[in-house]
């Protein structure tokens, strides 16, 4: 407590990182300056502690951010061809100090009819952008550590007379310091160039038979360079001045050919399509670095006197070939029948490269039936369309790297001057395509002349041969193997309701509501030696005091990977008498298993054995929501438009680590959430917030490690967000009618407000939030002008 810390008294009057110190004759002149005050020492009330209240220190990581987006385009054409030419400029300051995004973009597209039945077309898009990330580090570092600077820290050093100088104080070190000092020490430059170019040919071979050929080339070049100027780190001037540069290049080429045929015979219509595609994705990167440059003025590698690390390049590639087809049949527009198929082959698989994915769909436009229009129903219903579909999709997203099925031998670093390799991934040559088969029942209903419509879908999606990591016993040397891991089922309901409240010349008002609900179940798992072939999960007492497994994957149960299982806070021991009531209770996580103090948490002892251990954890909820939905309203009155969009989510739990870590003080010097004011003290005993102690010695916040958190600090994530409000005014046809085709002003507010109980900024993300980038609240003023 007497060290030079955020709460220690070993700081000085001028340039220590923090300002806390004992008041004495030599430093009391500081009280003449604004912001300095004293409090009695809680440990020794005879002494006064002097400190500076650095209000707003946590906000130093932010900058006011503005964005402008401008786009200009020309288009035109005649019976021989068309063209489009556009250019744009976007400049967006980031929310965090030193971050931002700039982009210049251009687009050309054109088509030309060579012959009556033969045309060619081309699209070219180019963009050139600079993304400046925060030079301070990752989101976690910035939001939790930099934003967590205590209000006793010193942003500027003090002059000997007590006024502030303009010399920035670095703070503790570059991972936990003054953002204003470090912001210009780390130079980070980025340039990304994207080019997408395609050429296509369209040939009408016969009247009802057409051929489309298309070739597409897409390229991303991402250049990064970095330089660290000399900087103070914990009092030492670090002069390594490392400079690094890297390039990451992505090349994607795609060739598609499609033949389509359509035919109508009497009341029967046919559309058929057959095609083939080749897709190749190549990624290449290289990087190099130097260090010990003599100057802060050159940011490039050439000024460094020796290499920093080993230069490296790396390439990887994957390819897919596909054949696909489609046949649609219709009878008088009433009965619709469709077949599709795809056959995909991927380089990412070993012995089973190909997968075949068929689909079938049926639709019935009941409202077009004679019996329907003849009946009274047609007065009410303008549309009734039941739908039924069954389809299979292939998925390889979870297969991992481009070559991981072949078994990896990964680098083990350099030893004895050579790079060593060892088996780091098991070969899984028999891996198959993951198939999701979806059975969908749908119904479209419209009434009131299509003004009120409902689109409803109920689906059962079975993910078969699910590609997932299967945990292995540790003796195998691997913690998991990627395998076709049984069948999971996803059942859900999606509803969309549209209502056109007004439909007149001057006034239109359109309302939309959506609702989604789904749950995941485990249908089948590979045999292992566990009950229900369980994978993962944890063992806890159930309400009968018997041990049972929850979470993980268990046949016949819901997917439990999102279950939150933790120790339950019953109450806070208000005083010694309450502590004594639990005398002899063993808490296996405590340094002294039976020693508790007033202000500590009384945990729920589920099975009543007077021992608190991991089996006393309980399921308190899930990190994924039950229900998603939203409402939107679009009102147009004459030239004015007013649009509101909201969304809501219910049923998920969130833990706010920025708050928890501060309260647990496992890092020290971290700032506090205001909840600390509610924590137990001898005067404030009626509370549900445990006492505030350094490094959470009694495991009141974190149980065992920071991954397991007291139930008190899991919060409901339910929210309703006012996602967008747009007010627009359309002057088209009012002024300068001759020159201006369209003129439209708008004002948009995004992420305007949340109705939520969660203490953090981002209720969208369920689960353990270690430090999330908040969705910024933005205000956009826009102008669309078309000549």
């Amino acid at each position, binding site marked *: 407590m007497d060290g030079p810390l955020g709460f220690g008294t070993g700081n000085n009057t001028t340039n220590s990182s923090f300002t806390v110190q004992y008041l004495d004759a030599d430093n009391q002149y500081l009280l003449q300056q604004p912001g300095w005050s004293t409090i009695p020492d809680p440990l020794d009330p005879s002494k006064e502690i002097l400190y500076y209240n650095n209000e707003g220190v946590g906000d130093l990581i932010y900058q006011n951010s503005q964005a402008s987006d401008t786009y200009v385009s020309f288009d035109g054409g005649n019976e021989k061809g068309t063209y489009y030419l556009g250019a744009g400029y976007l400049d967006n300051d980031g929310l965090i100090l030193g971050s931002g995004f700039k982009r210049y973009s251009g687009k050309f597209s054109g088509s030309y009819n060579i012959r009556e039945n033969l045309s060619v077309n081309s699209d070219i898009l180019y963009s050139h952008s600079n993304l400046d990330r925060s030079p301070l580090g990752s989101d976690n570092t910035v939001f939790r550590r930099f934003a967590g600077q205590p209000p006793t820290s010193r942003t500027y050093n003090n002059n000997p007379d007590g006024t502030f100088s303009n010399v920035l104080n670095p703070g503790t070190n570059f991972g936990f310091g003054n953002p204003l000092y470090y912001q210009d020490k780390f130079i980070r430059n980025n340039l990304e160039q994207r080019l997408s170019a395609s050429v296509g040919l369209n040939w009408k071979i016969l009247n009802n038979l057409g051929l489309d050929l298309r070739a597409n080339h897409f390229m991303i070049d991402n250049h990064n360079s970095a330089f660290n100027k000399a900087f103070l780190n914990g009092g030492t001037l670090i002069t390594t001045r490392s400079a690094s540069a890297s390039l990451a290049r992505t090349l994607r080429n795609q060739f598609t050919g499609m033949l389509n045929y359509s035919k109508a015979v009497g009341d029967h219509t046919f559309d058929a399509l057959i095609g083939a595609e080749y897709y190749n994705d190549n990624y290449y990167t290289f990087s190099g670095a130097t260090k010990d440059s003599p100057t802060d003025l050159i940011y490039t590698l050439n000024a460094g006197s020796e290499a920093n690390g080993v230069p490296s390049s790396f390439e990887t590639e994957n390819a*897919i070939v596909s054949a696909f087809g489609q046949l649609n049949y219709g009878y008088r527009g009433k009965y619709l029948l469709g077949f599709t198929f795809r056959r995909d082959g991927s380089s990412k698989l070993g012995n089973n490269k190909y997968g075949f994915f068929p689909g079938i769909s049926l639709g019935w436009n009941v409202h077009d039936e004679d019996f329907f229009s003849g009946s009274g129903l047609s007065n009410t219903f303008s549309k009734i369309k039941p739908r039924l579909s069954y389809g299979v999709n292939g998925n390889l997203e979870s297969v991992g790297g481009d070559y991981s099925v072949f078994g*990896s031998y990964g680098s*083990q670093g350099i030893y004895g001057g050579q790079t060593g390799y060892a088996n780091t991934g098991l070969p899984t040559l028999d891996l198959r395509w993951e198939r999701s088969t979806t059975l969908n029942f749908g119904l479209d209903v419209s009434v009131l002349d299509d003004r009120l419509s409902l689109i409803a879908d109920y689906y059962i999606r079975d993910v078969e041969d699910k590609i997932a990591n299967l945990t292995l016993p*540790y*003796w195998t040397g691997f913690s998991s193997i990627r395998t076709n891991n049984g069948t999971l089922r996803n059942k859900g309901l999606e509803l969309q309701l549209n209502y056109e409240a007004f439909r007149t010349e001057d006034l239109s008002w359109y309302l939309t509501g959506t609702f989604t609900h789904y749950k995941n179940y485990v249908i089948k798992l*590979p045999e292992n030696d566990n009950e229900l072939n369980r994978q993962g999960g944890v*063992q806890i007492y159930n309400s009968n005091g018997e041990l049972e497994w929850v979470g993980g994957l268990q046949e016949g149960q819901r997917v439990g990977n999102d279950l939150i299982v933790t120790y339950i806070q019953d109450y806070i021991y208000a005083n010694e008498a309450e502590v004594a009531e639990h005398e002899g209770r063993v808490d296996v996580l405590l340094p002294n298993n039976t020693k508790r103090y007033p202000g500590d948490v009384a945990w729920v002892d589920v099975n009543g054995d007077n021992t608190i251990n991991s089996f006393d954890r309980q399921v308190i909820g899930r990190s994924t929501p039950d229900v998603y939905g939203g409402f939107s309203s679009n009102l147009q009155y004459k030239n004015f438009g007013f649009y509101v969009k909201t969304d809501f989510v219910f049923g998920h739990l969130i833990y706010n680590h920025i708050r928890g870590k501060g309260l647990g003080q496992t890092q020290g010097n971290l700032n506090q959430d205001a909840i600390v004011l509610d924590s137990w003290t001898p005067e404030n005993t009626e509370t549900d917030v445990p006492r505030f102690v350094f490094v959470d010695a009694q495991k009141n916040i974190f149980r065992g490690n920071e991954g397991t958190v007291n139930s008190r600090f899991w919060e409901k994530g339910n929210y309703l967000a006012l996602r967008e409000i747009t007010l627009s005014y359309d002057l088209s046809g009012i002024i300068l009618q001759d020159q201006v085709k369209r003129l439209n002003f708008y004002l948009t507010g995004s992420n305007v407000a949340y109705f939520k109980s969660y203490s953090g900024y981002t209720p969208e993300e369920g689960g353990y939030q270690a430090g999330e980038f908040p969705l910024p609240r933005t205000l956009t003023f826009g102008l669309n002008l078309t000549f």
Partner: protein
Amino acid sequence: MKAMKNIIIVVASLLMFTGCDSLIDLKPPSELTYQGFWDSETGARAAHTGLYGTFRGEVYTFWALGALRSDIWGGQTYESPSSTDFIESNITVSTAPFGGWAGLYSDIHRLNDFISNVPEIDFVNIEDRDHMMGQAYGMRAFYYYTLLRTWGDVPISTIPFTEENPESLSKPRSAASEVMALIKADVQRSLDAFGDDDSFWEGQRVYWSKAATLTLKGDVFLWSGNLMGGGDADFNEALSALNQVGAMDVELLPSYANVFSTENENNKEFIFAFQFEQDQATNFYSLMTGRTTEIHPQFDQHGNSMADYVTNGANRFGPSETTLLRLDDHEDSRKDATFIQLYTDDNGGQGYRSYNAEKYFGSILNKFSGSVDGSLRIMDNDVPLYRYADVLLMIAEAKNLLGQDPSDEINQIRTRAYGDAYDATTHEYSSGTKAANTETILAERYKEFVGEGKRWWDLRRAGASYVFEHVPYLTSAEEYKLLLPITLDMIGRNPLLEQTPGYN
């Protein structure tokens, strides 16, 4: 009809695409896979280097398992301390440390992969292959020895895991006696493969060698002799193995401090050391340094200011007061070589020749303090696993257990430690009772090997009563805690595993 012909050509060429397997048969440009890896000597050599990269990756685990639960650490630190629960043997099933067998089976799989594939490969020079096999068997024995000493009964896996079918992979723990039999068999296979080749691989002691296997053999047979009923037969095996090491180009260096210096790596005292180099890998001893914020205002034990000490580490482990007091002999060169003690003042320029609890601030481990590169400290000391001092003191241990006089080896260690200050009248040891000799050897090993991950194993090898006598956090009522529990996750993955006795 021309149109029809065109259509046929178009359709045919579309379908040709998908028949073309070569389009999706890609070879990785920058990665190695199972296919072809073991086809040549080059692959074997890449894997051989890889074994050491992997082995080096465990240096913290080996140190923590071998030292933390003893009486060496757990003292004052000036940043929040690490592993306090483990140091104080606060161990339950809920908090079982080193879950997943500390990850050691991942390394054993790589050794198994090496051991099963390398004999199939033709080498230009067959002696190289034999030497490599000797190294691999020796290292595998060391891994299983570490598992045995930590958990007792553990699963045995000696063939590489390649099973694609994930069903029925549960495997129970094998009895410690079977594990010990495997260790001894691997030691013998290692010695057979080395044959009469005493050389160090490329002359470097950062690779396993016949000397390393013999040292391990001594260690293993002392353990099985004393704790698993092997008795004198095992002690004799141990003694005979250890006695052979002396002839294998090893010696006690004249200066203790020089043994660990980054300037003097690959010295003849090292039998096996993990290699660390700047820009390749650095060791964990930065956890026993600290930050400038705390260190710069302090003074060392000689009263010198620490203001210029270059450091960028952390202070997570501090020596216990017992350690400071045991080393508190300024004539013993091991005192200054082992720690820089920090004091809050310079005692009027005098410093603190003897430990002063009131002014003591904390310690920096000096033994493995790396090298300074400009404004950075690089933790690049090679870290010995076995060195000749260890062999000598194990010879003393074997002799004592066999009722012979161990004083010669003890005195060799002391002579080197005291250097010019060595005074036979006070420093020379004469053999006492067996119990007295055991305590003396333990005490000598304590001072000799601080920071080298030995002390917990030393106490364990001497017998459980020595653990309870010296470790303040363990009593004979908690004898089951000598072995670690396994986590529920381990049992969940492998239902045939049973919890370590005493923890349920």
